[in-house]
Structure formats: structure tokens, C-alpha cells
């Protein structure tokens, strides 16, 4: 089996398996993932949540960390949660906007 190289695309695809349960869509297409840095098997993810103080905060961050650790090429993961800039719906992908009926920009 070919092991694909550890790229940003692979990391984002993997993170798409983590959903925000309230909205029912994955964190990448919701625009919650602000940045991904890869350094020799070490992945650093900068992300936010839709609402400050969201009690799912721990679960979603831990889920993102765990799903990436499931990749063979990943040695360690650091997920950092940030609130600035605050998330807004314009950060969603077209796919998420259509699926969730988000308009009014």
C-alpha cells in the first residue's frame, strides 16, 4: 500500500472527519481550521469554534488531535484553540454554505 506524503491537503482531508455536532458539519468546511503547519511528522493546528465558551471545546480539539495521530506519517500533534479573530459564517466553504442553507452576506 502506498503511503501518501504528509501534506496540508491530507491533514485537512483527515480533519474533515471531525464534525461540529451542533451544526452537523465538519470543522474544515465550517472554516474553523485557521492554519496547519507541518514539520517533519509534527502537525500544528490552529483552530477556533463557532461560539466562545462552547462546552464541546475539549471534545472537538481532542478529536482533531486524535484523528491526525491516526495517520501513519504523524508523530505528534498540537491543536491550539484561538478566539481571535472570532469565527463568522463567511469563513465557511461554499459546500458547507449550500448544505446548511447559509446566506445573507
Amino acid at each position, binding site marked *: *500500500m*502506498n503511503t*501518501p506524503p504528509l*501534506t*496540508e491537503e491530507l491533514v*485537512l*482531508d483527515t480533519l474533515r*472527519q*471531525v*464534525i461540529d*455536532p*451542533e*451544526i*452537523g458539519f465538519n470543522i*474544515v*468546511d*465550517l*472554516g*474553523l*481550521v*485557521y*492554519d496547519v503547519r507541518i514539520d517533519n511528522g509534527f502537525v*500544528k493546528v*490552529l483552530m477556533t469554534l*463557532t*461560539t*466562545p*465558551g462552547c*462546552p*464541546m*471545546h*475539549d*471534545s*472537538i480539539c*481532542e478529536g*482533531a*488531535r*486524535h*484523528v*491526525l495521530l*491516526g495517520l501513519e506519517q504523524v508523530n505528534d500533534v498540537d491543536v*491550539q*484553540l*484561538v*478566539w*481571535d*479573530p472570532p469565527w*463568522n*459564517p*463567511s*469563513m*465557511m*466553504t461554499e459546500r*458547507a454554505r449550500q448544505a*446548511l*442553507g*447559509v*446566506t*445573507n*452576506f
Partner: protein
Amino acid sequence: MEASLPISAGAERTVARPAAAPASLATPAASVSLPLRFMMTGLLALMAGVIWLTVQPTVLSLYHYHQNVIAVTHLFVLGWITTVVMGAMYQLVPVALETKLYSERLAKWQFVLHVIGFAGMVWMFREWNMKQVGHFGSVLAFGVLLFIYNIVRTLLRVPRWTVVAGAVSAALAWIGLTVVLGLLMATLKTGLETETTSHSAVVAFMQRLRAAANTLSHFGAISTMHAHAHLGVVGFFTMLIVGVSYKLVPMFTLSEVQSRRRAALSIVLLNLGLAGAAGTILKNSPWRIAFGGVLVAALAVFGWEIRAILRARKRRALDWGLRHFLTALAMLIPTSVLGVILAWPGLPLTQRTGQLENVYGYLGIVGFVSLAIIGMLYKIIPFLVWFGTYSRHIGRARVPALADMYSPRLQVWSYWTFLSGLLVTSLATFWASNAMIRAGGALVLCSVFLFAVNVGLILRHYFRPQLAPLAAPKTVQKAVT
């Protein structure tokens, strides 16, 4: 690390100055089982209350100064609404205000005191044993004291003061006053019996209580009961619903509060209007119409802001939980109209007026507050069960979204049967028709039953989690093929 935000999407990219989440936000909510036990108890009380209304329709067709009416009303307001609201507050206040609950242990003790207190009160109201109402009421009041203390200590941790925090604080003051007034009413009705104890502290406390209760004897018993009811329903329930709406409606519709000044004004007016209305109702003063007008103004400002929030929403489709909630808010319109009519100076006190008062109370407690709570429970219960069952599985397995945990079809049926039942019961109450009240009660009972089935479907996830393996990312799939 510097971010270019968000990397996945979007039209708008703003300058990124990532600020890490403060540690205090890590686990703001209470444990799952604590609010759930409040909510399940409340749901049982709701079912008991609706069955009671259906089996004994005279509680709505007779004037409400009657032991059965007072008993069933306390089953609704204490057993159902207050129980759920307290459970929800232990969960939502820390979330809405971005802080942590002060003490979960106090909340557990309060639950025990609350259940003993309200169950005993309902039972003793039915028996019309006011002395025992006073005893059970004291147990409940001690629980309320613990509740207020716990939430006040939680509020002291709030990093920044908001309109929501203001509304929660005001609601705590009003529920405290409601309980005190209720206890004084019970004390007054027990008469001035001699103490059965010689303990000096107890005797002194009882004497003070009686002295305070005696001041109530200057007011009419029905006026005092009406003031007590308004303090609880407007001061605690309505204040909280209005306050948390400013957090929850934007959160669930992907919108924002459009005018903080307007939001604050609605809370200020609600407090001023209630203070004046409670005083003038107590004194049976014609000025109650003026303060009723202030309350209506507060609700109008609130409605204006909610309309603005909804117009600015990014998520066009409204889910049915939110529709329940917004429909409940719309119920404030007929309830307010009735309130103004009933506050009108010189309104003749006929049998029809008494029936109109029953409709007013029914619409306020069942049409507005209960429907709003059912709507919010469609958000809160799935969240609690999901959090307890699936949170540790994120990233390890495919987990359901909150909306996948119950049947939307049952939810829609429940919504329409509730509204049909509400309409039939309200009209039947006005006409004092027992047969129609029973029919309307049966419809509301059907609705509550469907809601309970949906709650059962949600709870099933506790015992039988629905997990599926994660699919391989597309990039990996491509590499394999």
C-alpha cells in the same frame, strides 16, 4: 505561528492575531448527569400536570382561587418549569457567560430539597393543609437559597458583564422575592399558632416571620396571590427567557445581537414594569395598567430585537426546536393583550372575567413558558446526552450530529398537536366547557407524549451509542488506488 484564516474556506480573510483560549474556558459546564436529572424530573411533572388537567378539567373551568387549581399550578411552575429551568441554568449559565459553575455538590443537594419541597407542596395544597405547605415550602426555599448562592458565586466569576448576566441576576432576585412572598402567604394562612418548641432561636424566627406575614393581611388574599404569580412567572421565567434569548437565538441562527442598547433596555423595562406591577397588583391599584404598559413595552422592545436578530441571520432555515421557541415568544402577544385587558381599571369582576384570568394564566404558563422550554430542551437534552456519550469518540469514530438523535417527524407532530391543544383549551377555558377542556388537554397530552418519545430516543444513545468507523480521508483513498 502566524495564521492565514481560515485555510479551508472563505470569502473573507481577516487579519489574524491568534489569542489562545483562556484556561478557564476549558470545562465550563456542569457534569451531564446533574442537569439531566433536573430535566427528567421536570418532564415527569409536566406529564403529571397535563394528565391532571385532562382528568379534572374543572381546574380551568372554575375560578382559580381553589385548592386544586393552586396545586396543579404549583405542579407546573415548580415541578415542571422551575425544575427544568434550574437544571438548564446549571448547564447554560456557565456556557452563556463563559465561566464555571461554582459548586456541583450544592446543586445536587438543592435537587433533593427541591423535589421533596415541590412534591410535598403540591400534595398539601391539594389537601389544603397550609401548615404543611409552609413546611414543605421551607424545604423548597432552602433549596432555592442554595441555588441562588451557587449561581451568584458563578456570576462573580464572569469575565465580562453582559445583558445576559444582568438578566440572570435580576431573575435570581425575583425568584427569591417570589419564594419569600409565598412563605409569608402560607404563614399568614396557618394563623398564629403557639410554638411547639422552646428553642429560643426558632421561636424568634417564627415571631419575625409572623410579624412579616401580618403585614400581608393589609392586602387582599387574591391580590397577594396574583402578585406572587407575576413575580415568579414574569420575574424569574420571563426574565430568563428574554435574557438567554440574546445568547441562544443568535447562536442557533448564526446571527448577532443587533443592538446591545435595545437588549439592555428590554431588561431594564422588564424590571421596572414588574416592580411597579407587583406593587400595584398587591394594592389593587388602578395604576397597574401603567406598569402593565411598561411590561408590554419591554416585551415589544425584546420582540423588536429578536426580529432584527432573525433578519440578520446567516442560517436561513429555522430548525423545529427553534420554531417551538419562537412560537412561544409569539405567544407573548395574546398573553400581553389579555394582561392589559385584565389590568384595565374598572373592569367588571364577572364570571367571564375570572375565566379570562384563567386563559391568561394558562397562556402564560403553558403557551409561552412551557413551549419555550420544550423548544430549548430539543437543544439541551441532545447536547447533554451527546456530550456524555460521544464526546470522547470524536476523531476515533463517526458520531451522530445532535439533530440525528431524535425523530424530526415526531417533533413536527408534537408541535402542531401542542398548538391545536393550546387553542382548544384556551377557548374552552373562556367558555368554561369541561368537555372541550378535556379534548384540548388530550391534544396537549399527545404532544407531550410525542416529546417524551423523542426524549426517549435521545436517551437511547446513552445506553446504545451509534458509532460507525471513520472513512479513510480522500487523499489516502487516492493513494491506495
